[in-house]
């Protein structure tokens, strides 16, 4: 009953507050989609100029060759990565200059919709375009951590490549008749490979012998029977089991992956986006009603404070007042908005939390007539607002997350005093099909 009550309360509270979305403070991954307010089901990311041409031609031209605006369309294109540069992992992670970061991270985005709703709820066509890039300043600990993970992985690779080369020879020997013979013959080489690669912390004979015996004993238990007519299958099983045993060591692929994914240091994102609206759905009549520019610095701490991340945001938006007065007469829109904010997030094993404060400053200059000399006079209108929210997440299982948000949001247009945010949500992840669950042979 308690569980049922919790579920009902969770769903009910989501319904109550889900009418107005809470947008988290973060850099836009696709500035163009962000400006249109799109959450496309898929973002096209062509990896070559030919693929880019195909993506644009197949979406923006209909069957008769006429230009059309696709619905729910989003594309992100990064010119630098259309070809190989033979970058080593070190060159990729630690470029010589910030110009390299700008080049590599420069991406162009394009988005469109047929459902850009005007003030009277009329659906119109709109296209937006954007650009983003970023700089990254790694701190000293980041470099040490990443290079240490890489060195450990390289040691592991040296050992497995060396063992596998010898395994290819041993499995062909006529005297090797079963898995036990095979493991017996390769033991000396495995021991030597572990020693040469330095993957055993203590290089004393007893330690290496114990380590080798343990690994090979576990491998032998999992190996299939040796069928001499299917030697490759046996060797594949051997490398898979050996790999699984060695992955328990510190030096693993996953450790390097996570070091690269969560690097510590200062990152600064820059993004710009503009949109073009076709309010009458006539291609000959268009207006650029809104443009935005973002700067988003973030800093991830290292070592003992590596669970902490601080992020700031500065966004400047400017609007065509004529457009909004004509097509959104009910809305109060300023000529320009400046959003600024700061967030602090912390991630632990199952628990994470984020606190953010976002301020907004808006202003407009409107025509107020002329003075006696005939000079145009302007009236300045300005407004400010503040939003602050704390969010707490607890991961119940890999697929279920319980979240609670509490704070004060921007004044909504309807019920401007209704600014309390108290939102309890239960997020269930069902996952998508995998290669294993789909029988691709059919």
């Amino acid at each position: 009953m308690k569980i049922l009550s919790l579920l009902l309360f969770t769903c009910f509270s989501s319904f109550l507050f889900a009418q107005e979305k809470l947008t988290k403070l973060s850099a836009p991954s696709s500035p163009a989609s962000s400006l249109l307010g799109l959450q496309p089901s898929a973002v096209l990311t062509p990896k070559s100029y030919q693929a880019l041409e195909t993506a644009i031609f197949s979406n923006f031209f209909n069957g008769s060759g006429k230009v059309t605006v696709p619905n729910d369309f989003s594309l992100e294109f990064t010119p630098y990565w259309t070809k190989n540069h033979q970058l080593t992992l070190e060159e990729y992670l630690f470029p010589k200059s910030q110009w390299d970061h700008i080049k590599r991270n420069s991406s162009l985005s394009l988005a469109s919709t047929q459902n850009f709703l005007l003030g009277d709820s009329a659906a119109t066509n709109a296209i937006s375009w954007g650009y983003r890039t970023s700089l990254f300043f790694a701190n000293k600990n980041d470099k040490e951590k990443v290079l240490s993970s890489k060195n450990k992985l390289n040691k592991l690779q040296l050992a497995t490549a060396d063992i596998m080369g010898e395994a290819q020879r041993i499995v062909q020997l006529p005297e090797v008749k079963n898995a036990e013979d095979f493991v017996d013959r390769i033991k000396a080489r495995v021991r030597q490979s572990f020693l040469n690669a330095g993957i055993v912390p203590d290089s004393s004979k007893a330690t290496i012998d114990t380590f080798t015996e343990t690994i090979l004993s576990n491998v032998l238990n999992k190996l299939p029977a040796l069928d001499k007519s299917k030697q490759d299958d046996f060797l594949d099983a051997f490398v898979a089991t050996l790999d699984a045993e060695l992955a328990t060591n510190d030096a693993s692929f996953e450790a390097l992956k996570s070091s690269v994914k969560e690097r510590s240091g200062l990152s600064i994102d820059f993004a710009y986006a503009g949109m073009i609206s076709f309010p009458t759905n006539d291609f000959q009549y268009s207006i650029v009603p809104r443009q935005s520019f973002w700067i988003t610095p973030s800093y991830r701490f290292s070592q003992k404070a590596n669970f902490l991340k601080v992020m700031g945001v500065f966004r400047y938006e400017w609007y065509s007042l004529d457009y909004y007065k004509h097509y959104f007469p009910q809305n109060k829109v300023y000529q320009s908005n400046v959003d600024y904010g700061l967030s602090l997030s912390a991630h632990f094993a199952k628990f994470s939390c984020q606190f953010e404060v976002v301020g907004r400053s808006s202003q407009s200059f409107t025509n107020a007539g002329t003075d006696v000399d005939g000079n145009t006079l302007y009236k300045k209108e300005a407004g400010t607002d503040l939003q602050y929210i704390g969010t707490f997440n607890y991961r119940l299982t890999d697929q279920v997350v319980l979240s609670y948000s509490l704070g004060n949001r921007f004044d909504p247009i309807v019920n401007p005093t209704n600014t309390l945010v108290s939102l309890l949500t239960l997020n269930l992840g069902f996952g998508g099909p995998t290669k294993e669950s789909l029988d691709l042979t059919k």
Partner: protein
Amino acid sequence: MRKVYRYKNLSYTLADDEIANFSVQFISDGTTGQTVINVPGSTDPSILDSGSTPIGNGASLRSEDTIVVSDVANIIPEEDEVRIRYFINGQLVQEHCNQVSESDRPMIILTIQFPKP
């Protein structure tokens, strides 16, 4: 995901006194790995990432097959393939390519013979 790719029955014609210089070139960006060249005899040279190493003369390489094993990883999100070229004395003997979606930790095994001219 780990996957093993094999290229068998490769050959490179080499005179008895001619030295074979083996080279590995990682074409795809951000790839890291070790290549061990298992030659007849007790000393097997290795190459970290891209590079080259002498592996012996024709006479010393003829008694058995030479087995080259590369254990490779690619972790960078911008790269969608692992592409590696193998050369002997500047001549391309094999190019390997696989999609990262198929395997981001491939193991590539070449079996090479060195017949007399």
